[in-house]
């Protein structure tokens, strides 16, 4: 996809801050399950929202990743969501719901991760 810059997870805050300092706005983040890894893309809108730019990193499922919420509070909900639904280990979220923003105590754990059954359904 155009306009997505590949970064290392440690660069998220400095690279994200560049968009925000230039008048950009955080839009959302998307997490994808790549079997042994997670692909995380943060999207920002610039130029009155006309253009979209993204920052993407790929990490192992057990790796800790930084939060952008200290820079912009707008990432709080989506970072909690990725943490709960994908098991992305986001550390230091400004408001951490402790794994229970969407999921209850007895909910399935990391329900958005792909299972073998899901993969079979997608065969041609």
């Amino acid at each position, binding site marked *: *996809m155009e306009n997505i810059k590949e970064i290392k997870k440690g660069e998220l805050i400095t690279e994200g801050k560049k968009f*925000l300092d230039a*008048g950009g*706005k*955080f*839009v*959302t983040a*998307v997490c*994808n399950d790549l079997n042994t890894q997670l692909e995380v893309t943060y*999207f920002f*809108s610039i130029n*009155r*929202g*006309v253009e*979209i730019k993204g920052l993407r990193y790929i990490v192992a499922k057990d790796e800790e990743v930084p939060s952008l919420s200290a820079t*912009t*509070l*707008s*990432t*709080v*909900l*989506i970072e909690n969501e990725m943490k709960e639904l994908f098991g992305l280990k986001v550390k230091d979220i400004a*408001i951490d719901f402790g794994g*229970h*923003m*969407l*999921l*209850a105590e007895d909910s399935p754990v990391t*329900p*958005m991760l*792909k299972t073998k059954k*899901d993969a079979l*359904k*997608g*065969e*041609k």
Partner: protein
Amino acid sequence: MASRTTVPFGPQHPVLPEPIQLRITYEDEKVVDVMPVIGYGHRGIEKACELHEYAKNIYVCERVCGICSYQHSTSVVEVMEQLWPVEITPRIKYLRTIWAEMCRTHSHLLWLGLLADAFGFESMFYQFWRIREKVLDILEMTTGHRVIQSVNIVGGVRRDIDADQKKIIIDTLELVRKESEDLVKVVINDYTVKARTVGVGVITKEQAISLGCVGPTLRASGVSEDARLTKYDAYGELNYEPIVETAGDCYARAVVRARELFQAIDLQIEALNKMPEGEIAVKVKGNPPANEAVMRTEAPRGELYYYAKGNGTRILERLKIRTPTFANLPSVLILLPGCQLADVPVNVLSIDPCISCTER
């Protein structure tokens, strides 16, 4: 020092038709802290979209919300159309624009009714919703359905608008405009409404950007940002500029929606008059390719963001939905602290929250 008390506002509350909880801490009558709690009705729609073939995602996604169902349907078909990519005809673009603005019209009428109800103007609430029925009637006439239109398909739309329908739509919209003007004047100029909304729940321009606000909530804070500026569908050929207010308070958010109501009527009439002849669907072959795409549309509450990733099979690898209320929800963190307890319902209502969208 006054003692602090924390009370649950919701998930069942008269001002909230859907379940969300705000844990409000107050001191005397003043709110000092708030924590939004969601998750009461999460439906796992994104997961469902990864389990069914792509065409079925339309039926799933248009049920994310009952008010902006059409925008969800448009977003999901257009994000999938970008995966191939599929080039749709200008007539399809115009038809989608007309129905989208119809939905904005009825959504803003619904919200204005709720605002009137929040102030105890029950008759006005009935009147706004009576007018809204006329818009639902033309939606039913043109799509076959009042709430979930189900008229979009990948590569086009199921129904066309003929010359007879065009005349009925324009006549109805003129009537909606006339009747709404009378009511909106009362809401916007009423002493009680102004006393309860002017200077209440101020979000500054910088805060609105920093919190990631969208739609009327963002534009009422002086930010001229709107997904329609990307010129998707027919917006690039219509006389469109975002409606912006600068005060950033509850009143400004009401004024933006009131003005957008009339702008949506203008856009529909302009689109109906400019709509070119052409096919209403193009053939789409095969499965969505291994590709990824983003589609942004402007729903009544703000920018709706869809991300899709195909893998060459009939099932998408990933479909992500970022709804407007999900983006506007962090704004309650600065809207409520400092306000009077009695102003909480109006403040919450002013962002036009849709929990159904948030709990997709």
